């Protein structure tokens, strides 16, 4: 299963090669041109010679992880997050370094903690990874500074059509994009599986510049907070209510005409759709939409609980609906590309 494989592969920002290799094999039969660009984005191109809108589909490959930055005299590994990670979720979790070396994020047992210690979460400075090394030299024979430690979580179905796994919040977009590439569209499609999104949408910036599309769709996961106490105002999105179409996030204010178009297409095709309540952090759209002359961009996201943690949770129903919506939008696109009031990126207008 595509989602399972993608979830269990390790690949953080700047170290996406395992994910890239797998995706390359997956999409190769369905694209005309395939290459890896200079920053590491995997680019797949379909229908390059056709006229019509050139559409960029983007999903990022990198997941959040930990980087080893120091090794203590006793052989314990100190680390820093790559991407946004809450230090409070880390204590006592098993991690994997270099795809083979198992470690445990250690902390003092509850029996030994003083009252005050029990009331305070540990910070990155206090946490360490124990790889069973006897000394600094012993540790250095197994890992080196700059190596990454990844969450270990088995991908599994549970509940009513839900999946749990690590990196689902990142790779769900890759899975959607790989599946969409199997379809035939009668205009050029440029697919970008991007790198370094979690550290500032860096791969997408480069990809949008050299691909120079007329329109872009970012496929992502977004926060579902439908588990917290209180009223639904703070839920952002809800699992099971369909894909979320972003209105605004910290890096993009989405084009209102495109939002209306997405809403109309969802209605016409009976696809459930939700709009996030409140704004989340940015995604690759932030880099893409202000590239070159400006590229009209939308973000479609699968709602996801517990993002950036050891086990995120998505609903298969949302995943399917997100795929259906992206597919419906692509089929509809040629109809609005010419002659609508939406100003698509056409460099020759200047």
């Amino acid at each position: 299963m595509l989602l399972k494989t993608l979830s269990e592969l390790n690949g953080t920002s700047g170290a996406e090669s395992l994910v890239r290799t797998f995706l390359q094999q997956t999409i190769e039969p369905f694209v005309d041109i395939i290459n890896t660009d200079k920053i590491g984005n995997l680019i797949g191109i379909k229908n390059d010679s056709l006229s019509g809108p050139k559409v960029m589909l983007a999903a990022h490959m990198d997941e959040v992880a930990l980087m080893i930055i120091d090794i203590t005299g006793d052989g314990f590994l100190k680390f820093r997050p790559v991407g946004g990670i809450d230090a409070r979720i880390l204590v006592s979790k098993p991690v994997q370094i270099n795809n083979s070396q198992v470690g445990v994020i250690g902390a003092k047992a509850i029996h030994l903690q003083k009252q005050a210690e029990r009331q305070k979460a540990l910070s990155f400075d206090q946490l360490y990874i124990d790889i069973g090394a006897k000394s600094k030299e012993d540790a250095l024979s197994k890992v080196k500074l700059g190596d990454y430690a990844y969450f270990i979580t088995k991908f599994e179905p549970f509940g009513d059509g839900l999946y749990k796994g690590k990196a689902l919040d990142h790779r769900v977009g890759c899975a959607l994009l790989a599946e969409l590439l199997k379809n035939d569209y009668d205009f050029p499609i440029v697919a970008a599986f991007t790198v370094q999104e979690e550290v500032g949408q860096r791969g997408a910036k480069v990809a949008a510049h050299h691909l120079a599309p007329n329109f872009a769709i970012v496929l992502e996961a977004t926060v579902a907070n439908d588990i917290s106490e209180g009223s639904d105002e703070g839920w952002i999105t809800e699992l099971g209510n369909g894909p979320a179409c972003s209105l605004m996030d910290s890096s993009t204010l989405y084009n209102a005409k495109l939002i209306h178009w997405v809403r109309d297409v969802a209605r016409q095709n009976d696809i459930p759709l939700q709009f996030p309540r409140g704004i989340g952090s940015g995604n690759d759209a932030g880099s893409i939409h202000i590239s070159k002359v400006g590229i009209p961009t939308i973000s479609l996201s699968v709602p996801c609980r517990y993002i950036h943690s050891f086990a995120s949770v998505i609903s298969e129903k949302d995943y399917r609906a997100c795929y259906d919506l992206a597919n419906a939008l692509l089929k509809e696109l040629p109809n609005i590309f010419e002659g609508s009031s939406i100003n698509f990126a056409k460099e020759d207008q200047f």
Partner: protein
Amino acid sequence: MDMDLRILEQLTQIFGPSGSEEQVADFISAQIRPYCDEVINDTLGNLIAVRHGTGKKIMVAAHMDEIGLMITHIDKEGFLRFTPLGGVRTSNLVGQRVKFNRGRMGTIGVEKIAKPSDFKLDKLFIDIGAVSQNEAEQIVHLGETAVFVGDFVEVGSRIMAKALDDRIGCFVVIEALKRSKSTNELVFAFTAQEELGTRGAKTAAYVLEPDLAIAVDVTATGDTPKAHPMSVKLGSGVGIKVLDRSLITPPQIKRWMAAVAAEGNIPFQWEVLEYGGTDSGAIHLSRGGVPSGVISIPTRYVHSPAEMVDSRDVQAAVDLLVSLLEHPLE
């Protein structure tokens, strides 16, 4: 030459939060079309005007967008929750009137607050007079944006209104464009989404590839009771930017701007802004780099419904821009 303040009045009252700049663009387009060779709306919502000439290509930028609020949730009783669009000060909001694009007004209320430190944006809501979610959804929709209500009023030599940030810049550029006899290649960008991080200016500068750029925008002042120390004063002349968070003006640009101001007996003051940025921040980093400066209009109460400028500073800004376009940096 006298400025037509009626144009400024209309500019400030047009609905145009970030992302919804169309009406501002249409108004400006009608004003400047007779004076330009080409007028284009670009992908991101910028209005770009070109006046061909033979000399240097000078880009002039002023942003059309104003700060606002975006609806994120409509509750069962018809109250709206919102998120800020640009640098909205939470403490300014309660009791303010807001207006949506199709004209519906509302006011901002607050939940019961136990202690002052609980006063946060997520405790606030907009009341548009709807009695149910259903009724509210007939009037507004998720993602729709609102702006402050703030009439245009002249008080002595001063003017207050909403959205002077940065319709005053648009006004200065329109006035200068009408007056200019410059023979240089002039490109004017009335930009979108400045308040969200100079996004429109980025794509405009990429397209236009200027030799030189000047942004016209508001700046803060330090002349109100117990203000944060800042030497800029209302009525003391147009500001020439030295630094803000997005730009440190190149020495040759500062010298050029000051020399042209002195030559024309135009009152100016140096401006150092410790926070915020302008379109020049994005423009000066475009492609291989563009030498850029900023003409600043001293403005009190920036990002409030009653921003205040002095009309003498505005006149000085127009005069300076006209002169700069005629005497570009060699």
